């Protein structure tokens, strides 16, 4: 048990503190927020011995550079990690940084969001029971800025866990994104739904509120005005210009644009991680299939996280990882 501090030497834009979020407050205009990539966030925590919902740092393209005042162990996911000038990893894993060491973290190539968890408790501001940052208000744990200092309590050095962790998405991160059509799919011109599920889209610009999709326009049949209605993480809303946007963690809770579809929960995070320009293809499933997918994915996620938390996981995961990433093993 040691107290410790992390100093932010430099932080790019959209670096935030996130725990699992604050669900249940949509009725007050408050989205759940939480990590853009929930699996990556959970894995970074569990890999270094934390509870999966602990506050961790979410990093966007600009990255973050931190100095530790005492030795600390970090879990990371979807991240490129450099410790005191030496490249440690381009993936998922655990690294222990010596006292005075500098750790630089960016999303790994081909991803938008990376995660860094410190083994211990990252002390943050809590809002409505959660450290998750709602970026447009700055409420919650907060946007991480150059010069910030984080206190870490209950820091536990876990150098025994150091090493890579197998990327659970290796090989299947590029599949089609599953959607349930509606609720306003009938408001579009005939052919719009067909285009949505048959033609490729490109991941466009975006932020924690949502990601725009470049592709064939999805035209409305009439200039439809609908009364503002509740929207969810995953809503595919289409503005008057026919450009769809997938709403994500910090979405507004209501909106007046028609929604052609909703992306399934696990696939929201896949869309969020696709880099600008990457292909996004959609496949429609019905409500019963969506439930089956949600249950299967939750079980898969649990198996992966249980494996990470298991006392003997280090050896097993390392062997697994060595097979997946020959030559990628740090010393």
């Amino acid at each position: 048990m040691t107290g410790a501090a992390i100093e932010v030497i430099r932080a790019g834009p959209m670096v935030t503190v996130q725990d699992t979020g604050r669900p249940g407050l949509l009725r007050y205009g408050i989205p759940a927020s939480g990590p853009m990539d929930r699996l990556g966030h959970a894995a970074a925590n569990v890999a270094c011995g934390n509870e999966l919902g602990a506050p961790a740092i979410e990093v966007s393209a600009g990255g973050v550079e931190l100095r530790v005042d005492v030795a600390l162990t970090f879990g990371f996911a979807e991240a490129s990690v450099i410790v005191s000038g030496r490249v440690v990893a381009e993936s998922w894993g655990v690294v222990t940084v010596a006292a005075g060491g500098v750790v630089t973290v960016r999303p790994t190539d081909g991803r938008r969001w990376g995660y860094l968890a410190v083994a211990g408790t990252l002390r943050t501001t809590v809002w409505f029971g959660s450290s998750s940052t709602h970026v447009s208000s700055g409420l919650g744990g907060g946007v991480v800025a150059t010069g910030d200092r984080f206190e870490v309590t209950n820091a536990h050095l876990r150098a025994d866990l150091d090493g890579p962790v197998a990327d659970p998405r290796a090989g299947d991160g590029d599949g089609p994104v599953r959607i349930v059509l509606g609720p306003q799919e009938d408001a579009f011109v005939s052919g719009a739904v067909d285009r949505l599920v048959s033609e490729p889209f490109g991941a466009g610009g975006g932020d924690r509120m949502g990601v725009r999709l470049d592709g064939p326009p999805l035209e409305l049949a009439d200039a439809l005005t609908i009364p503002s209605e509740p929207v969810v993480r995953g809503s595919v809303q289409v503005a008057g210009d026919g450009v769809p946007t997938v709403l994500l963690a910090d979405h507004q809770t209501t909106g007046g644009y028609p929604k052609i579809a909703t992306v399934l929960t696990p696939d929201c995070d896949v869309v969020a991680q696709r880099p600008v320009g990457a292909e996004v293809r959609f496949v429609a499933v019905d409500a019963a299939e969506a439930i089956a997918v949600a249950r299967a994915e939750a079980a898969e996620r649990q198996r992966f996280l249980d494996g990470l938390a298991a006392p003997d996981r280090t050896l097993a995961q390392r062997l697994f990882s060595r097979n997946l990433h020959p030559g990628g093993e740090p010393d």
Partner: protein
Amino acid sequence: MRAELRWRPIGDSGVLVDFPSLDPEAAWRRVVALDREIVADDGVLESCPALVNLLVRFDPLVTDHESVGRLIESMEADDGTDLVASEHVLDITYDGPDLAGVAVATGLDADQVSAAHAGASYHVRMYGFAPGYAYLKGLPEVLGLPRKPTAARDVPAGSVIIANDQCIVTTLTMPTGWWVIGRSSTPILTPRSARPARFAVGDVVRFRQAS
């Protein structure tokens, strides 16, 4: 006869409930009444009422769209015709930068504008746009103005803003094209208390001039 309730699946963990044959006012009342009957239990996580429909979110590991849809169809003891509403009073100081502009545009003087605003009672129609932004409906017709042609920047939290037939007490510093007529020191969101916000959708709000 009671108008038909319709529900549609939203992704893997929600249903959207509406009343297609009802006019907006009757639909909103049904939404509020139904919302009050829904409890977070048996996999139902939360409900979110809006102007003419209601979202119900559920845990897909526990329940599914059909079960939640059937549950909702079995509810509706109340159709919302006689909504019982809690009433809340917010302090207000009428010193907003647009008070004079509203007076000019409506042909009133500033005291008449504030008297008209403070004399009305408002229904909390829905929350949206940003945390704690409650759309309060009931602005007197005489104050009904379209949004300003250009938005003002950095309008501070706690501003009381009006446009068309609605009023909002802002909770964040943001740009707005609504008319800023005053400010309220009464916080809307109350994260440290048992209730997350001062009032719920369906409640009634009144304003009282701070002395």
